[in-house]
């Protein structure tokens, strides 16, 4: 299951509270030390180290690392996994400065980059295989709502699976700087019911090669 959305939310739900907690703890300790140090009348302390405390503290840090790594590894494995029999396969070709989505059967959604891109459809709740590559420089395929991105390398395909659990529009953007119209290099995916998706795909394939946008 290529569920990047829930993996991200799961890991964020563990990492962010810890990070905020550590920040608050350090800040509170620092403020306490500053107030006490400012009021101090006697000569400064001379303790130069506390080896046992430092070793114990280092072990605590190492345990934190181990915990975070377990969380990260367990969440990453399912994102990287690709399904043996995905429901749909879409070839995505990026170039300066356009996205082309080609479906099995020949249906194509292509778009010279703009902030109002044509919409490519995907089925809700099914495993969608993406097969991405670039025709020139490196581009980045980023769907912020799914918290997923992958770089498309020139003439060297990359494969990943995504699942769109909620119907609706998923905006996408090129994340890797790729030249003058990088900022305009948007794309759009829309998740619809599998039945509607199949209907759209059929109509689209018939209209090939003049197929442009949908919905």
């Amino acid at each position, binding site marked *: 299951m290529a569920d990047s959305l829930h993996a991200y939310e799961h890991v964020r739900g563990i990492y962010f509270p810890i990070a905020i907690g550590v920040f608050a703890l350090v800040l509170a300790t620092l403020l306490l030390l500053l107030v006490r140090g400012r009021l101090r009348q006697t000569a400064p302390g001379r303790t130069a180290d506390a080896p046992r405390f430092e070793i114990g503290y280092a072990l605590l840090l190492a345990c934190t690392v181990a915990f*975070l790594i377990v969380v990260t590894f367990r969440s990453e494995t399912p994102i990287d996994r690709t399904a043996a029999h995905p429901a749909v396969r879409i070839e995505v070709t990026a170039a300066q400065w356009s996205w082309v989505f080609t479906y099995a059967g020949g249906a194509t959604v292509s778009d010279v980059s703009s902030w109002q891109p044509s919409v490519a459809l995907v089925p809700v709740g099914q495993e969608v295989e993406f097969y991405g590559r670039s025709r020139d420089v490196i581009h980045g395929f980023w769907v912020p709502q799914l918290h997923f991105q992958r770089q498309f390398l*020139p003439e060297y395909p990359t494969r990943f699976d995504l699942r769109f659990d909620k119907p609706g529009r998923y905006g996408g953007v090129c994340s890797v700087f790729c030249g003058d119209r990088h900022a305009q290099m948007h794309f759009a995916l829309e998740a619809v019911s599998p039945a509607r998706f199949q209907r759209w795909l059929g109509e689209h394939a018939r209209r090939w090669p003049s197929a442009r946008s949908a919905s």
Partner: protein
Amino acid sequence: MAVCKVGELSTVTLPARAAPLRTLASTDHKRVAVGAGAVAFAFFIAGGVLALVMRSQLAADGGVVSQDTYNQLFTMHGSTMVYLFVVPVALAAGLYFVPLQVGAAAVAGPRMALAGLWLLVFGGLAMWAGFLTSGGAAAASWWGFDPLSDAIHSPGSGVELWIFGVVLATAGQMLWAGCVLVTALRCRAPGMTLMRMPVFTWSMVATCLLVVFAFPALIVALALLWAQRHFGGVLDGGLGAVDYQQLFWFYGHPVVYVMFFPFIGMVGEVVATFCGRRFFGHSAFILALLAFAGLSMTVWAHHMFTMGQVTNKYFALTSTALIVPAGIEYLDLLGTIWRGRLRFSAAFLFALGFIVQFLVGGLTGIVLASPPLDYGLNMSYFVVAHFHYTIFAGSAFGLFAGVYYWFPKVTGVLLRERLGKLHFLLMAIGTNLAFFPMFVLGAEGMTRRIADYPSSSGWQSLNELETVGAGVIALSILAFVVNVVVSLRARQAAGDDPWQGQTLEWATSSPPPRHNFHALPPIRSFAPLLDLREDSEDLLAGERAPA
């Protein structure tokens, strides 16, 4: 020792007003370091002006500069700040203070140190000369990633000049690192054992090791890029692009710590001095620095998680493991404040700013080291916020802590404390206004390196806030420049040791003589001057209350 003797004095006598000229032919590490610091600061101002233009563009809904100009601006801003400001200024501080802190009369390889200054000047001028060419300066980002930077996608001499500039400046930095490293390892005064070297010197040792081992990879990467541009066939196709990034980030991650270690070292010195106590956990701090340096050579491909071409889990593991040395360093800084008698000088305020704000950058770095989170945040403004919190909100504050601390030693006069505190206040406010909103924008999907964004995105107001913050930062730097000018004109003599320093640079005159020391105090620890003060306190206490 022979490697560290004072070079013969110049036979040419120049008038006193020709001081900059003398710097360009000097073999005095202090003079070369001040020259390098001044050149780096000039590039900091230049890179900062580029940032202000970018911020105006992003606040003004586009329309200030063209897309192509904007690409040149962020490329040159990043390149200037990394290659021409932060790394050079860090090494310049080492070049000035490492010989003093270890009680050496000179730096090892003074002519190499001088060559480094020339290389920095020529490298910087070459890079910036791109603006004078018809195609404009390099516009392929400070990474210069192939294939965007190849002859097809970035024709013209901008990228050529950028390659030459970066290679020259980097070669100079390698020379400096060699000088500083050999000075610390081979030129120490009698009694100055390795474990008695102060934290700043140790931070420079770790830094120079990284420079020596990692920087050649950048020169190789850029040489290959140059060959690709002229002959092709070197970095072709998708895997050529991956190869370039492997080489680039093998430099590009260690350089992040080159831009961090020296400044946490400065903060360590400042905190110990203004808390009036010995640095806490000196040995642990050194071990942490060395572990940090070693680990940092193994984390480079966490910049490549979203390529799908590296073993993400391995790099996630090594990157997350950095928590251990970083946590120890933080414990030692807090431990030094513990039971200290604090003096809230401008230098100490900047050190506190470093401690709090760098933490934000460090913790978000751990977030980005987790691939499931990086997939959602990479290349976004979240990353921009993260590294500006480390390099600017962290290291630049550490740098100014060092500047306020050491300025009296270098010039013989004190900086104005009240102007310094104003500088701190403005810079802290401006920094957080400018960079904190970027975390939010990045998580909402704003990508890096865009001159414009759809008005429907709702990002305008936060971008305006960031631009206001950038303006406040500019004001704070103005306050600093005014402070320097006022302090140098209406001079308040600093004396040898205005802060009750603990390390050897405070045991000589301000500025130090050509050969650094007339005499050295006994060296029994990493804080020889504190030893002397504690001895006399004990003696007094003993006289008052005889046992």
